[in-house]
């Protein structure tokens, strides 16, 4: 079996697993509020139903950001343009009404809410549900 074929095989297995595990995917504690950097990002290691993932977590305290629906966001740490895990180290901002992070390498912008790249419609980062539980930060894997 070639490497490509093997990958396809695994993708389809993963796909089925994720479909079946979707409802049972557990929320998990990732870190505490003190680990976060306000108005910036940190990276976390996440075990999910689809395997392990590097996740960028951004914290935008609501008292200083006008009118955002959420103050926590989790999306891929992996930058598909640079092929490197760097998204958490990008600059956070808002463009055309949406909170975004700019890749620190080639500066593409990704919407925090849904991972959509603003410069390239075909590129979208994965996102995860994330919330505070008291001082703890929980992500739905």
């Amino acid at each position: 079996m070639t490497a490509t074929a093997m990958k396809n095989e695994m993708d389809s297995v993963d796909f089925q697993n994720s479909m079946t595990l979707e409802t049972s995917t557990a929320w998990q504690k990732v870190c505490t509020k003190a680990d976060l950097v306000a108005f910036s990002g940190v990276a976390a290691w996440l075990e999910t139903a689809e395997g392990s993932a590097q996740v960028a977590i951004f914290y935008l305290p609501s008292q200083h950001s006008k009118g955002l629906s959420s103050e926590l966001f989790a999306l891929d740490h992996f930058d598909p343009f640079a092929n490197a895990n760097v998204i958490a180290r990008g600059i956070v901002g808002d463009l055309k009404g949406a909170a975004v992070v700019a890749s620190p390498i080639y500066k593409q912008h990704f919407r925090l809410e849904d991972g959509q790249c603003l410069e390239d419609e075909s590129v979208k980062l994965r996102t995860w549900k994330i919330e505070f539980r008291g001082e703890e930060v929980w992500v739905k894997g």
Partner: protein
Amino acid sequence: MNMTTPEQLIIIGNGMVGHHLVEQLVDNGGLERYQVTVFGEERHRAYDRVHLSEYFSGRDAESLALCDADYYATNGVELRTGEAVIEIDRTTHEVITDQGRYPYDRIVLATGSYPFVPPIPGNDREGCLVYRTLDDLDAIRAAAENATTGVVVGGGLLGLEAANALRGLNLDTAVIEFASRLMPMQVDNEGGELLREKIEELGVQVLTERATQRIEDGEASQHRMVFQDDKILETDLIVFSAGIRPRDQLARGCGLEIGERGGVVVDDQCQTSDPAILAIGEVALWNQSIFGLVAPGYQMAKAAFSTLTSGDTHFSGADMSTKLKLLGVDVGSIGDAHGNQNPGARMFRYLDPIKQEYRKLVVSSDGKKLLGAMLVGNNSVYDTLLQYYSNGIELPAEPASLILPQGSGAAPALGPDALPETAMICSCHNVTKGDICGSIDSGAMDLAGVKGATKASTGCGGCTALLKSVVDHELESRGVEVDKSICEHFSYTRQELYDIVRVEGIKTFSELIEKHGNADTHHLGCDICKPAVASILASCFNEPITDAAHIPLQDTNDTFMANMQKNGTYSVVPRIAGGEITPDKLIVLGEVAKKYSLYSKVTGGQRIDLFGARLEDLPDIWGELIAAGFETGHAYGKSLRTVKSCVGSTWCRYGVQDSVGMAIWLENRYKGLRSPHKIKFGVSGCTRECAEAQSKDIGIIATENGWNLYVCGNGGMRPRHAELFATDLDDEQLYRIIDRFLMFYVRTADRLQRTSVWRENLEGGLDYLKEVILEDSLGINDELERQMQTVVDTYQCEWADAISDPEKLKRFRSFVNDDRPDPSIIMTSERGQLRPA
């Protein structure tokens, strides 16, 4: 006319005027009718002779060129440089050069002029030169290598230009003028006296009423000049600049009509006595006059183009009004400046011996029209006076108010509103206010657009300020709001944000955006405004960039105080001031690189870059470097990078100053200064310039007497030679000027604008910069120096600050919930070191 076989047009001469004619032909369809061949005797293609003296202050032949290297070829015009025409054969209709014979249908003579060398015995001695072409300048530069003194014969416009060039070459310079005053054509006795005072203050000796009798061997110097009264002057180098003469030999050789004192006689269509041959520029004699300025030459080129293409534009003489800055001294002359061509004219004069300013108005007998004006020491009213003169605008009831100092009831400058449509704005390119309005109406939306469409202000540049005020006024009156906002979060430029931060003492981004940000955003900022504001805050208050309030503003490089590479790892560059490093420190660098598997490379800025450091290793790496006495190199910041140096007088046989010592001192003074973009210095220990200082933002070159300071150079994508800013400075003068210069740059530049681009966009150019920094024209120098001293006094190594603060170190973790390193970073080996796979 048979359109399939174009006529052969030969242009003889590739100077400014000849080139202008080619541009007319290219831009206006002339090439459909003519196959054009241009002969240039010099090896360079057409260059800007007006700014020739800048060749000694950093500009090279390429930057003085009037067009791109491929302009002629691209447009199908054959340019033959380095090929002199020796004869025109009117019977066979051929132009003969040293390389061949070329048939012609029409010829345009644009051979210009040559410098007149007075018939003095000894005028052909070695080291007796002229000032006209780039090759002349090369010869002057070569001769100056072994000279300490230089004399310019001729105190006119070109003579003073030449004197400036000699000063630029660090020669003790004297100017000798036959008449009783400098610039006898442009100024009167009062003006000439003031001009002399100012020029003598610059260290240039001025000798008037001197007729040189002969030049012979000197005793202490190369030459001895003997004058009419047997007085003598010794010098190593002599430059003749005693006027110009038309280069009319070709025309004489083929029998064209020549004026009594030279010059090819032309009519209003620029035709010579042979209608197949035209002449333009300084070789042409029109109405008994030779026009030695570029603007009339361009007008002749336009008339010649019209004649060649059956148009009806004629040359009808030209206004010789001119505004100059000679040796840094303003001189302006408008119309009948001496008042001797208009019987009954009345004169107003204003003389300020303290400020050394002289102004004179020549007014019609009824007091209503301006006939001429003369300015020495201050040209600020020139534009206004020229508009009164050339447009016949009625003078105010008190004409003297136009030349009285501001604040004493002087008349306001004539605003762009008051100018008629026919007002000439750019006389080099014949652009009127109407043309400018036209270009705006057909889509030009800013100054650059208007310049591109009309070419206004691209000749001598003298009308830059006037053009801008007209364009601004016209755009405004059309309701165009020029949006210079930095981004969608602030409706301000970087400069305006800087002023707000300083004036209001705002110390955080959140305070700034709450008070001054645009209401319709989430007030998060973005990757444009946040780093810009971070830089402004750092320049003003110099708090550590890793403080909690500032950290989200920084680019990743500043956040982690290292340079992110393409695979997400970082490179580490400790400061090695001046490129000087002890063996012990070198060993530490090697040991650290080995321990953390870092790829090592020597940088262009004379330090060592260690690549491939993982985020989580950065604090340990820096702990070891700091323990060994290193500090951060700010390679990641928009801030001072390096001060490159050559080894200087401590080792080098040729060095005249301790360049390494100065480089280290300067690097330590300015390290940590946050600025709109990175800043690089170079210090060379002698004129051989081994540190390549002239390619840096700040370049310093040692002289026998101290330091010469160059500013606003750049390497990189668009190389630019730094320009000579001040000469023979002692150590303290040097750093004070740099203090002011850098702070003024920090204050006024745009985000990510290097000093070179900033300088090119600076209204008023180098002269303005000198006025602000050297003469304190804005009265801000004390403040600039104080501000810099604050930055210097509050310096701290950001890495030392970070590794002593556990809170700051928390961010240097690969994952907040896991200690493993990022498994996706994979390295491979090449030439004995690691690199990204």
